[in-house]
């Protein structure tokens, strides 16, 4: 392998075209081919020489990345004037151009107006170098503090749970037992010492230090307590703290027991809190939950399909919890499902079984469908679409039949919305056009006509999306918020990560069509609302939510506005109450691009989402909601 690489290295020479291009750039035209060859060899050799010298400077600079200053220093060694003006900590963006059979990579040098530079306010002075001490190890044991990396890396946890025999758990090496020292739990020697032929999985002892016990107590109390601010803090700690590995079993037991008790007591609030804990655990980049799924999955599934989750099923919004739990479920399926544990197929089987059961209640039915739908288009296609007729009939029976009970009716409505929402996009993909209401009715029964309109909408949106994708999709990659490390240390606790809240569920907007204003302190995410209006018939707004938290990726959702009108919207995002660090101001970028065509004037601007309960705006509402709701990277159906 190394040899192959080496052989490739030896014959890399700059192309002669480059020589020509360079010669032209300094005013030498018509360079002979021979001279080009000779030049390119010489230049390649010199460049390699300089690169090798530059490498020395990199090594002595104690870096892994070669910087432009290394090259400068290497040039200096050779008594060559360094290249001024290339100082850049990050990569230099080379541009590419081709034309006339030539291909060029060049460095774009923009003309800069000096007055612009002078007039721009000075950037904040970077923080000065500072020194901070912490314990890397105390008598051979590495304390789990934020300044230290997690005792077991995620990869290690993964191998540990998938191949238990390969890894000896940290701290359970022979050494610990031979010495009989009390350091058996946390000796962080990382590598298991493989001695002897028979390797039995050693018995785990779980001892939490006093600090850890205190932490556990505080966190669990805060998570299920009444103070929302505290909870937010606690959840954030769970989602970011690197040292939780040792406490993971305790947390999972806490959650599973908590769900068991609270389901019986129909305590919706507590169930939501517990699910948020699950979410936070899943978000923690240093934890690998595989070993605790046997406790977590039943708890989550319970929250999806339980017959009753709250005391007043007609009023309380337990649907949101089901949606949320369904998403959690889908996420864990995605992350942890392997051929050995078959999580996804087992979950699917369970859900389908109760879905197919005639006696299943609306609540459970809703949960099953939600759970399945979140697993993806394939699952919808194979498991839900065939059921549409049956479910439709059942819904029809409730909606149009004699009033049985209000509860049933609400349940049926929810199931209907859910089905329409999830199935439309899938059908739009698999079914050829045109969409005929009658065909739909024939195929899907009661739900057919409604499905049809949804599908049509989904299609237009999809085409629009396809048109616009190159022009208006704006990828805003905000550099990761650099934590002011000196203040927050290495903890990341300063990162204004507030867990998202599911207080206002999508389905509620159906009833009260107000734009989702989070009732909780919303995450101080940066919102970019970019509205691109194309010359087409409908417009699409793209809401790009950039949460400034570290783990969340920008969620882009496209909000289709009313079917046939242009609707330039300006959404003003009111800054949520700042999170833990009040210093970070909410950044708002509202980009409104108005169409050039006259059609824009036809529709007056409305400053909020349309208030009509049209299914279109409903969709929009849902999307908006979902873009805020945790975890699932919402990609609107199109």
């Amino acid at each position: 392998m190394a040899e192959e690489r080496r052989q490739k290295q030896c014959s890399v020479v700059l192309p002669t075209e480059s020589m020509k291009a360079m010669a032209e750039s300094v005013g030498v035209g018509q360079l002979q081919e021979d001279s080009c060859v000779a030049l390119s060899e010489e230049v390649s050799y010199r460049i390699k020489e300089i690169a090798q010298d530059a490498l020395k400077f990199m090594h002595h600079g104690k870096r892994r990345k070669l910087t432009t200053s290394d090259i400068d220093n290497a040039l200096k060694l050779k008594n060559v004037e360094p290249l001024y003006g290339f100082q850049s900590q990050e990569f230099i963006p080379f541009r590419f151009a081709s034309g006339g059979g030539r291909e060029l990579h060049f460095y774009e040098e923009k003309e800069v107006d000096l007055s612009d530079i002078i007039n721009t306010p000075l950037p904040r002075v970077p923080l000065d170098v500072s020194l901070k001490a912490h314990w890397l190890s105390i008598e051979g044991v590495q304390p789990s503090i934020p300044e230290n990396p997690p005792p077991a890396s995620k990869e290690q946890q993964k191998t540990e749970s998938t191949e238990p025999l390969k890894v000896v758990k940290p701290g359970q090496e022979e050494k610990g037992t031979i010495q009989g020292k009390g350091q058996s739990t946390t000796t962080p020697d990382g590598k298991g010492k493989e001695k002897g032929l028979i390797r039995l999985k050693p018995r785990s002892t779980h001892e939490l230090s006093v600090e850890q016990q205190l932490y556990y107590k505080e966190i669990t109390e805060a998570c299920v307590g009444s103070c929302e601010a505290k909870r937010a803090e606690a959840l954030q700690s769970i989602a970011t703290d690197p040292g939780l590995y040792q406490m993971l079993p305790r947390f999972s037991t806490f959650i599973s027991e908590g769900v068991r008790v609270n389901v019986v007591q129909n305590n919706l609030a507590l169930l939501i809190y517990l699910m948020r804990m699950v979410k936070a655990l899943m978000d923690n980049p240093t934890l690998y939950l595989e070993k605790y799924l046997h406790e977590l999955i039943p708890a989550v599934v319970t929250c999806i399909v339980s017959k009753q989750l709250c005391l007043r099923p007609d009023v309380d919004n337990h649907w949101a919890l089901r949606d949320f739990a369904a998403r959690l479920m889908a996420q864990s399926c995605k992350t942890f499902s392997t051929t050995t544990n078959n999580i996804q197929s087992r979950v699917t089987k369970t859900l389908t079984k109760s879905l197919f059961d005639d006696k299943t209640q609306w609540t459970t039915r809703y949960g099953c469908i939600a759970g399945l739908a979140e697993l993806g288009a394939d699952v919808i296609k194979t498991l839900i679409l065939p059921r549409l007729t049956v479910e439709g009939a059942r819904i029809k029976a409730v909606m149009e039949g004699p009033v049985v009970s209000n509860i049933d009716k609400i349940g049926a409505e929810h199931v209907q919305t859910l089905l329409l929402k999830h199935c439309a996009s899938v059908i739009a993909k698999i079914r050829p056009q045109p969409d005929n209401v009658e065909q739909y009715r024939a195929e899907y029964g009661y739900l057919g006509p409604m499905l049809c309109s949804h599908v049509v909408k989904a299609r237009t949106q999809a085409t629009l999306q396809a048109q616009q994708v190159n022009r208006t999709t704006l990828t805003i990659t905000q550099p990761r918020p650099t934590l002011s490390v000196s203040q927050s240390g290495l903890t990341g606790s300063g990162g204004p990560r507030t867990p998202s809240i599911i207080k206002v569920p999508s389905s509620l907007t159906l009833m009260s069509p107000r734009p989702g204003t989070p009732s909780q302190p919303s995450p101080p995410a940066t919102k970019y609302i970019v509205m691109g209006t194309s010359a087409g018939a409908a417009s699409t707004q793209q809401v790009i939510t950039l949460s400034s938290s570290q783990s969340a990726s920008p969620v882009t959702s496209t909000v289709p506005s009313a079917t046939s009108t242009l609707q330039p919207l300006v959404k003003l995002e009111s800054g949520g109450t700042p999170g833990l660090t009040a210093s970070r101001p909410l950044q708002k970028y509202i980009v409104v691009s108005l169409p050039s065509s006259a059609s824009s004037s036809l529709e007056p601007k409305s400053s909020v989402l349309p208030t009509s309960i049209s299914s279109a705006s409903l969709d929009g509402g849902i999307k908006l909601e979902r873009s805020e709701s945790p975890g699932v990277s919402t990609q609107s159906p199109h």
Partner: protein
Amino acid sequence: MNFKKAGLDSCPLTLGSTDQSEGSILRSRWFPFFNFAHAQFIFKMAAVQGGMVDAKDELDIKSEPPSDGFGNSNANDGRLLSSSPGAGTGGTATGNNKPAPGPPEEQQTLLAVLQFLKKSKLAESAEILRREAGLPEDALDPKGTDASGSGPGLAAGSGQVDGVDASSLLSRVTVSSSAAAQAPKKAAAGEDQPDVSVVLSAYSQQGDPSLYDAYYSGLKRFIESVLDCHRAELSQLFYPLFVHMYLELVYNNNESVAKAFFEKFSGDQECYYEQDLRILSSLTKKEHMKGNETLLDFRTSKFVLRISRDSYQLLKRHLQERQNNQIWNIIQEHLYIDIFDGMPRSKSQIDAMSGSLAGEARREANKAKVFYGLLKEPEIELPLDDEDEEAENEEGKPKKKKPKKDSMGSKSKKQDPNAPLQTRIPLPELKDSDKLDKIMYMKESTKRIRLGSDNLPSICFYTFLNAYQGLTAVDVTDDSSLIAGGFADSTVRVWSVTPKKLRKVKSAADLNLIDKESDDVLERIMDEKTASELKILYGHSGPVYGISFSPDRNYLLSSSEDGTIRLWSLQTFTCLVGYKGHNYPVWDTQFSPYGYYFVSGGHDRVARLWATDHYQPLRIFAGHLADITCTRFHPNSNYVATGSSDRTIRLWDVLNGNCVRIFTGHKGPIHALAFSPNGKFLASGATDGRVLLWDIGHGLMVGELKGHTDTIYSLRFSRDGEILASGSMDNTVRLWDAMKAFDDLETDDFTAATGHIHLQDNSQELLLGTYMTKSTPVLHLHFTRRNLLLAAGAYNP
């Protein structure tokens, strides 16, 4: 080039006159010498620089009149020369040009220098040299030309310094080099310094280029067919042969053949030569060869192989049978085969020792006696009460007593037989403050924790935040009160990590107001207004790569890319001296454990020994074939170890500048060195991620610690030498059981003088702990006096 000899030989010249004189005369008498040193240095620079200009010029001298560029470059040199401090004052020193060079050889050497200067049109310098050396005007006759021939012989003769028992080191100022130690080798190679034309012309006679392939593959087939026991040894031939054959092809403009040859056989070479092969691969033209340092190194130094007699006979017979003269010539000319009697070595034994740029060290290179013992500590009245002392003794008893313990301050009067004479090199006298510090040290050491495999040290990590990849060097004072960082932005920052803030001394005007008789005058001179935790030292004009506190905490040294070493006062926080000499980046510098002296090494491939009160180096340690990347003083201050990019470690005698040890075995540039506290062992870490342990007395590799996955930047033994800590770019600190590593070894039979050690692979057993940091490469490690481990590095998000 003979300038080095010129420098060497000038020393007895000054020596003779300094014996009876002192003071100002003495100082003035040095100047000629310094002038020589300087000239020599500059010429070396010219060669080292690989500068396309200078090296080429040397070639051109023979054939054609100098071109324009040539004249320019030398004009440059000339300017440097004349502006050198020595030359400036040379006029005042003209009075002492009586000590004319005595021995004819010296004169010849001087003539050679003179001739070179003339040739290079450095008329002024030549004139100065001529005047200073007291040579007649017409000294430059053709007979000067053969001076170069007698050069090598001189080097060997310069060992005489050894015997001289002068009263102070300074009076024996010698520009020393490895030349003496390596005289035979270099002599064989023709010249000490790469005389490019001679070196390269060795390639001119050659056979049919198309046959090279056949030659090489013939040898390859032969080696592959011999008995297993010989195959490993003979396989060592592949790499040097390959390189020389390739270079010959390139030299004779057989570019395409060379390329094909390279592509065909480069894959066969050992993976640890990959770096060199990469350099080699870029070299495809004869013109490229002229400025290439690596190539010149390869040419000028014979590649050393150790092969058993049997294997060698086998090879010889084969080559003679096949009439394979091409290969035989290369072996004769460019390789040095160190034949030994006995069992052929195994593949693993060979691999352990090979990897350096110029093959293994010759056996005789490591035979010199090294006084690795510690100096006796001066007797200091210990104001300890008796209990304390007893406590210390009791503590010491359960464990096996190490010889170290003796010198550490207990009452043992016995002189370590391996220790150098107390006066072998002059050391500064202890000041009162030093004595106080010693007492503090002893007090602290009584509270020291005994470390061991079951008693690991705590590690306190100092993270440099917001350093934005700019931290390049760190040092901590011996008493762990100050920590200094060198940064890529040319600054040096000093922090106090104790509550005691850093204060400057008051200005001169304010100092006048102070009552000098008062008891707390030392306290009063400090300006309270300037108290702060951090002081920034500005002065360098390039990244600061090396940094070192003086043992008394009054000074700080920093070496930088700008080619200077600066001495800073930690009383006034200003720069006191800029030591110029290296002209190229200085990668590392370190104070002697007794202060006063310091060593530096850099890109110019020489290490220099300095004294703080002299602006010119006292010794120049030349011999490394590539950059000197790190420098360390032996605990007894009599030796200096240098690690280099040529993948060797050399140990130099401070007294006479000889190279007394060459350690090969690393497969990458060496970036960390550490002496064990008892002075017996040396640990080294390199970019290959391995730590190697060396027995200094026997000159042997005694251990290999594998585990790191990236460059090791810091190594440190615990105060009692039980634990070796290593810090690396891979963001880990690892602790190794040094006791066990060295103990196991003492059972070995060292008398097996062959030096063929068999290393057992016990890294895993010796590894006591691995501590990951959070994306913070570990740049420095330091054991406090109580054996707490301090580590430092910059957070690198």
